[in-house]
């Protein structure tokens, strides 16, 4: 099998002998010829490298897609992508820590590119009561026409319907059960208004929702913003948060810092969903660990592959050395071959990822229906759209390049002490 290649290699070596440095382009050419000579092995090795790259970039793209999906989904339940608040409201959610001029703020934000819809909310903790039963709950005054458009809470296993006019309330199903009320019943709300006044409100319960998240189902009451403003003696343009729904999570990241100003704090999704950020970081660590393990196994097979190459080509190397080539030239030659195989693997791996992510980011991946409950509780959407992860690319590519270089060098080092005569003899 090696007759032809031996001659081929010898001739090339003789040709490049005079000055190896200036002859570098030829060195690349030889390397290419060498790796194409053993197509099967090159492909198998490249496939291993491609798999490691694919593993990292594709899995990360899926993960990032899933997370952005979850963040977006969760934002569209209630939280929004961005919230604008009084600077101290988050730490001290007192009724007085409100923002004024919400209509101007909403008009301003809605006119910006990347914004889908903007709505305001006022909120306060209060006593909700029906008959002899009373429970504490978070009362949220909402712009119901807008919330009906964007908030998925308004469509979560709803009994009855969402708010359509003043005097109505939309409440969590667990709270309704605890209060012993059903749709059509009156809900009495009693809280503390601005400057310690009494905030009182009676509303007809027109609908209940079940989100599956106990804290939402047990302790939230939505009423029209105007009703809230009157009961809590807020001004007509006063509220506690302006909720911004951006066209995408990425848009919201760009928008968030632009919207804050003196007296108006802008919270982005990372501030609003810190547990999601934490979960993302934990998943990232897990993926890195898996990638490193896969990379180690693949690199082992690259070492193996180069051991075979060196074994097979020892007579050839003997020949080259006999005509004056130095061992380190041969090592460089092998390193270039390793680099070419690696580049092939990277192109293959990234190619598959790019095509896969490209297609799937359009069509989306339907998540299995059986996992429904679990996913819902984790705020996962029904379809997932992968997002190409450049972060993964910048990790995976250097690791694989360095790994294969090392993998080729380890068996290659043995060539340093090889003598032409012994090498030629091993051909027999």
């Amino acid at each position: 099998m090696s007759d032809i290649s031996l001659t081929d290699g010898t001739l090339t070596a003789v040709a490049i002998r005079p000055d190896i440095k200036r002859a570098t382009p030829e060195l690349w050419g030889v390397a290419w010829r060498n790796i194409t000579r053993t197509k099967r092995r090159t492909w198998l090795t490249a496939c291993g490298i491609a798999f490691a790259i694919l593993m990292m970039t594709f899995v990360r793209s899926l993960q990032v897609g899933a997370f952005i999906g979850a963040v977006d989904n969760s934002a569209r339940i209630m939280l929004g992508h961005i919230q604008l608040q009084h600077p101290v409201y988050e730490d001290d959610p007192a009724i007085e820590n409100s923002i004024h001029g919400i209509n101007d703020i909403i008009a301003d934000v809605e006119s910006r590119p990347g914004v889908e819809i903007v709505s305001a909310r006022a909120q306060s903790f209060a006593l909700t009561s029906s008959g002899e039963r009373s429970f504490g709950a978070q009362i949220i005054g909402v712009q119901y026409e807008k919330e009906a458009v964007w908030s998925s809470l308004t469509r979560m296993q709803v009994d009855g319907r969402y708010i359509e006019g003043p005097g109505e309330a939309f409440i969590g199903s667990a709270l309704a059960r605890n209060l012993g009320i059903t749709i059509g019943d009156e809900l009495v709300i009693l809280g503390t208004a601005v400057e310690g006044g009494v905030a009182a409100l009676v509303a007809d319960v027109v609908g209940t929702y079940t989100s599956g998240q106990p804290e939402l189902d047990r302790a939230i009451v939505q009423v029209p913003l105007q009703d809230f403003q009157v009961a809590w003696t807020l001004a007509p343009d006063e509220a506690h948060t302006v909720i911004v729904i951006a066209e995408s999570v990425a848009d919201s990241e760009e928008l968030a810092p632009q919207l804050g100003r003196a007296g108006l704090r802008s919270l982005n999704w990372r501030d609003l969903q810190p547990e999601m950020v934490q979960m993302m970081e934990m998943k990232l660590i897990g993926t890195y660990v898996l990638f490193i393990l896969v990379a180690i196994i693949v690199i082992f097979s690259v070492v193996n592959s180069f051991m075979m190459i060196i074994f097979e080509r020892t007579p050839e190397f003997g020949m080259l050395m006999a005509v004056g080539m130095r061992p380190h030239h041969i090592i460089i030659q092998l390193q270039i071959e390793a680099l070419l195989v690696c580049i092939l693997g990277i192109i293959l791996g990234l190619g598959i990822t790019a095509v896969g992510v490209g297609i799937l980011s359009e069509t989306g991946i339907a998540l299995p229906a059986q996992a429904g409950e679990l996913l819902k509780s984790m705020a996962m959407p029904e379809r997932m759209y992968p997002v190409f992860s450049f972060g993964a690319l910048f990790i995976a590519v250097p690791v694989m390049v360095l790994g294969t270089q090392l993998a080729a060098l380890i068996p290659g080092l043995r060539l340093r002490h090889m003598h032409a005569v012994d090498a030629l003899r091993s051909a027999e």
Partner: protein
Amino acid sequence: MTRNLHTRIDSSSLIWVTIVFSLVGLTFTDRSHAAEADITAKELVEAAIDQTRGISSYAEFSMVIHRPDWERTSSLKSWTRGRKDALIRFIAPAKDAGNATLKLGNKMWTFTPKLNRTIRLPYSLMSQSWGGSDFSYTDLSRSDNWLNEYDLSIASVTTEDDHKIYTLVAIPHDNAPVVWGKEEMLIRDDYVMLQHTFYDQSMEPLKTLETLEIGERDGRMMATRMRMVKLNAPEKYTELIWGEADFDVELEDQMFTLFYLKSGE
């Protein structure tokens, strides 16, 4: 959202007694001075409290809630019957007028004219602020045997302006429904409460109810202006200022009913 479900930091104490009952009971012209040095702590407090037993009262007072960036004054009326039952009603400002709290034994209801409804307060909201003040509903809902929950002693007696001032220390019993490590009261020999300080369980003072003015109402000396303030936030406080007060008034039993809570003005 759940992050916002904070509750106020306030807790049970002798305050209810202080606000509504002690103001009536602590001074009586016919027993204007505590007996001489031989009075015990328990006698000192009991002497004050016992006088209120079975006695009804009517008082008008205003409440000033002061915060760094706003201040609000409300006018209220209160009626008491014995040490168990009380009714407090807001008279002004107009937007709060008519709001009322009724206490019968250890049950409490609140009434809001805007809704025309009475609501029984659940235990889970007892620690909430009452009317936006620095008092909680728990402060208003003391049961009548509160005295039995403490070990009382007189720590010191001083003399100032011809008055003896007793420093009374109340240490709650082990199972007492009291969060404080101790409470310290300065009581003048004519039963006027001068100061009431609440200590945490490492005996650091946390908040104090201090008497700013003393006056005469219906022939009795009493604290007429008191201020509740947390020692770490002196810029936030609630003041109670008494106007007219009548003792031993005839009150109809129907005053202390849910029906009256709803219909009374």
